[in-house]
């Protein structure tokens, strides 16, 4: 699938809704305490990119693990940390991306791994 430019791509290959994560759009607005078909799949997505540690069987419950994963994701991508699958968050989740994890071995390499802005850094004075 290599094309010199976009106009040379056959229309049959340009299926915008054939993306791997388009189905997540139906989870728009989901929040803590709900049980919604499809939440297990988005937990798998967050596990793939390092936001959820346990790789066990995921349920469709919107539990604390999922809420924490969403807040960490929102922090990493400069979104409002609502903990809810709101519009901006869902739109960002379905964007094509690099397959490397954002969180490796439990330590985030993005915003959420950094001290919050303005945190006083430790000062020590050598005597």
């Amino acid at each position, binding site marked *: *699938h*290599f*094309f*010199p*430019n*976009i*106009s040379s*791509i056959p229309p049959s*290959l*340009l*299926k*915008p809704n*054939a*993306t*791997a*994560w388009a189905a997540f759009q139906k989870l728009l607005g989901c929040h803590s305490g709900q049980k919604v078909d499809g939440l297990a799949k988005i937990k798998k997505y967050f596990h793939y*990119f390092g936001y959820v540690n346990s790789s066990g069987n995921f349920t469709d419950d919107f539990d604390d693990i999922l809420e924490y994963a969403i807040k960490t994701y929102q922090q*990493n*991508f*400069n979104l409002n940390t609502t903990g809810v699958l709101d519009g901006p968050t869902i739109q*960002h989740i379905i*964007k*094509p*991306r*690099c*397959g*490397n994890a*954002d969180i*490796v*071995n439990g*330590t985030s*390499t*993005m*915003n959420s*791994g950094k001290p919050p802005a303005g945190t006083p850094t430790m000062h020590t004075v050598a005597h």
Partner: protein
Amino acid sequence: YSFFPGRPRWPASKTDLTYAFLPANSLTDTIKSVFSRAFDRWSEVTPLTFTETASFQSADIKVGFFAGDHNDGEPFDGPMGTLAHAFSPPAGHFHLDGEENWVIDGVPIDDGNFFSTLSAVDLESVAVHEIGHLLGLGHSSVEDSIMYPTLGAGTRRVELANDDIQGVQELYGSNPNFTGPSTTLTPSQENDTNGTPKFGLS
């Protein structure tokens, strides 16, 4: 910017890195030149050099296009979704999803509707990002940086931002000929979906 845990990097004794393409992909010279341009962007700001070699087995960096499960435990997922992944130094594996619609010549077409559809991916943008991983950079939350994880359908992002340069120079130091972000070393054009030029680092 960020690094992989343990800050892996290529050893100081290895600044001249080689790269090779999976022979089974039979890539054209035009496609290979996209990767050459992408490597140039990183060598312009570091003491590292990248030279293509024919020997896939002995190359430091091994580039291959694969579809679906390709035996590294991280199967690809078809059009869009995950586009590519790369391993931290000194592994050197660089895998791209063969089922994406890869656009080779990233120059926007006249009507400005560059990438006007949702399922075309700019090859050079993805290559520059993954080479950052191959050198030891992790993802960044800085939205105009190369190491930002998502590539919105419709964008082309190939020029290193300050964040990327600071990160890679913390690992390898600078290129003596690099005189700071204002240096235009590799011409390119950045546009977002509606063709408006983005004035990133140049």
